[in-house]
Each structure stands twice: as structure tokens, then as C-alpha cells.
């Protein structure tokens, strides 16, 4: 006899809930290992005096968003287009926007 539909549904739901619980437990367990790796990376930042994550390498202003200026994204002229796609993901740093006019 085929199992009832409710049995199959509740079984699937229970399996998915177990998957979610497993996901949270896995994240918890990995966090300890991750913290050690993060501490080593923090030491690397101190050693190399780094300022940014290496996520986007196509343009200087998205490779080092903390150190960018207003002119670089619009390389050629004030009215030229910003032409690198990652400029849509990485917005200008807040300190550049708030200090604009003071130091630039």
C-alpha cells in the first residue's frame, strides 16, 4: 500500500528541517576553524599593511575602494561614463562622499 500523502509531505518537511538544523550546526562548528583562519589573515593585513579585500581586480577604484578618489571612475573627463561593470557593485566609500570638497 502506498504511504499517505501527508506522511510523504511531513517526511519531506522533517528532512528539510533537519537540513536547516544541520546547516546551522555546520556553520557553528566551522566558525571556530574560521576564526583561526581569520586571525591569520588579520596578521597578514598587519604585516603587509593592507587596506582592502581583493574581490574585484578590474579597476583600481573597485580593487581598493577605501583609497579611491572621485576622478578615477570617470577616467577621461568629468562627463565621461564609468565603464567598469564592478562599479555598479562597489559604491564609493562614505568618507569620500562626506569629505568631498574639503580635500579633493
Amino acid at each position, binding site marked *: 500500500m502506498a504511504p499517505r500523502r501527508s506522511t510523504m509531505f511531513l517526511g519531506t518537511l522533517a528532512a528539510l528541517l533537519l537540513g536547516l538544523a544541520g546547516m546551522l550546526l555546520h556553520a557553528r562548528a566551522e566558525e571556530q576553524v574560521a576564526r583561526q583562519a581569520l586571525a591569520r589573515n588579520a596578521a597578514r593585513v598587519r604585516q603587509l599593511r593592507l587596506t582592502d*579585500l581583493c574581490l574585484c*581586480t578590474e579597476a583600481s577604484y573597485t580593487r581598493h575602494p577605501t583609497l579611491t578618489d572621485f576622478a578615477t571612475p570617470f577616467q577621461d573627463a568629468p562627463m565621461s561614463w564609468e565603464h567598469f561593470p564592478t562599479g555598479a557593485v562597489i559604491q564609493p566609500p562614505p568618507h569620500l562622499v562626506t569629505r568631498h570638497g574639503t580635500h579633493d
Partner: protein
Amino acid sequence: MAHMIERHRHIIDFTLATLLRRKGKNGGLLLVYTLIIFVLASVLFFTEAIRREAMLVLQESPEIIVQRTQAGRYQTVPMSWCAGIGSINGVGSAQPRLWGYHYDRTRLANYTFMVPAQDPPGAGHVDLGGAVARMLGAATGDTVAFQGHDGAPRAFTVRKVLEQESQLLTADLVLISEQDYRLFSGVPADQATDLVLQVRNPREYATIVEKITRMHHDARPILRSEILRTYDAVFSWRSGLMLVIFSAATLAFLIFAWDKATGLSAEERAEIGILKAVGWDTSDILLLKFWEGTAISLTAFLAGTILAYLHVFHTSASLFAPVLKGWSTLYPSFRLPPLLDFQQVVTLFILTVVPYTITTIVPSWRAATIDPDAVMR
């Protein structure tokens, strides 16, 4: 208790039979709903993991960086600034930093050349970031060549390849000695890219910054707190493309919810009428609709969230890689630590499952309270 469970199971049996009668429509609905939650959860997990990693590792970034700008663009800093800025009260040291970009025309990749302050490679040697080594096919002891500022190729021996786990920081780095860097880039001996300041007391940052800008009007100091705020802002869900992805997914979800909330199809109304006519209570019909909404939204939520977790933390958010890569050919191969915020999962649940379930029940409640005869007509 057993009776109540059995009642619910019968209603679930009936609900599933109803859903399976419209397999195509409900299957499609479940698929798209799962996809929306997958996208939303992937964005949430990815941005939160990157943001937290940035916060944790960049806490060790320089306390103050001093750049020089001219006509709005940054320029090299005269080494003579070190003495003046270093003599400001509260500044422990002011050291020059040498770094810059190099575009590899043959491989269409940008590298970041940098002179490390500690343990620099010897003359004629370089340390390569993981992605650079992968792109050049180089290992320790190999010889690699880069075209210098004067167009002449310069060969270097690879001292070591930087460790895999630091790729999110060092993937595109080429570490080089100061002497080699100056010859390679053409930066004169009396210039540096920027200055790095050590300050003992964080409460003095503002005063020191003010003194630097008074001393050199073209100086642009950047504080460590500003570096951290940058990543907080860039990977906040309100920023850039994240907001676009969020808006698109939320809009798709609203269309779903709106479709459900604005009414039932004639077939569904007739079904409710028949159920009432054969003796179902309004509460039974609401329970039926509750399970209908829950079956779809809870399944989609759980499947979408688990898939998003696997996507972000086990495949390194491979679907987002083209977005972050842009036109570049160099991309770090990193594995994000699963720094999950449980509250995010709860918020996602509340924002996706609850509204859908409610929008399934409300129109049915309206139909269920009308006379069955009127509903069936």
C-alpha cells in the same frame, strides 16, 4: 490530541490532492518561489559573510593612511613628508608605503605590486598571490617576467606563493623588494605611494588628521575606522547591485503575493462552495488554505535557504563571481567562512513565509463566509 493530529493529517491529504490536481501551476509556483528565496538568501549570506570577514581582518589595517591629491587625483607623496608628519604629537611613526598597479597586456589582468614592510623578497625575487601564480602557471623557484614602465621585460624568481587561505586579501599581489619596485615602476627614490601612520591613542586621530591637512593642504588622510565603514557600507543590503537584486526578488515576491491576495479563481471559489455545501466548516476551509500556503511557502523557504547556504559557502558564491569579476580575468578563489547570523534566517522566514500564508488565507476566508450557493454561482 491524537484526534487533532489525525484531523490535520486528513486535511493535509486533501490539500495535497488539491495541489496535485493543478500540478503544472503549483509546481511552477514552488520552483519560482524557491528560486526567489534562494537569491535573497544567497545575497544575505554572501554580503554578511564578506562584511564580517572585512570587519575582522581589516581591524589590523593601518591606523591612518596619508595620500596626496592633485586636481582630484592621487599622486605620489614626497618622502620628506615623513619627517614633518612623524613629528606631530601623538604620531608614533610615519612610514612610506610603496605599491601600485600593473596591467598584464598578454593575460588582460591587473596585478597589485607591493613592497612589504616586513620580510620583503630579496632583489630579483617576488612572492606571488594565489591568483597571479595560477594565471602565470608559476610555482616556487620558477622565473616570471613583467614588462616594466620603460617597456623592458624584467625577470624575477618566485620566492614563494602566498597561502591559499589569504586569497581574499592577497590574490592579485606581487610582493617585491623596494629597489626592484622603483626600477620596475619608475617611482623616484624621493617619492612613495602613500604614508602609513602609527598612532598610539585613537582619541587623537581627529586632531592628527587636522594637523596633517593644515601642514599639507593637498594631503588626504584616511582613518582605519573609515576603511571599516567602507566595507560596512559596500556590503550592506542597501548598497549597489545588492539593492537591485533585492528589489527584483522582492518585486517578484510581491507580484506572487498580490496575485494570491486579490482573489481566487472561479474554480477555487466553486471548490470552496462545494466543500461548504457538503458540510465543511469555515474553520476547516481556513485550515485547508493554511496548509496549502504552508506547504508551498515552507517547502520553498527551507529548500531555498539550504541551497543558498550550499551556494555561498560550498561553491564560493559561484553565481556571483561573474558580477564581481567584471571584465577582469583575475579572480580570487576563496572559501567564505560560514559566519551566519541566525536573526537573518528568522527575518527571511518572517518576510517570505508569513505574508504568503496570510495572502492565501484571506481571500479564502472571504469566500468561505459567503453562502455556498452564492459562491458556486
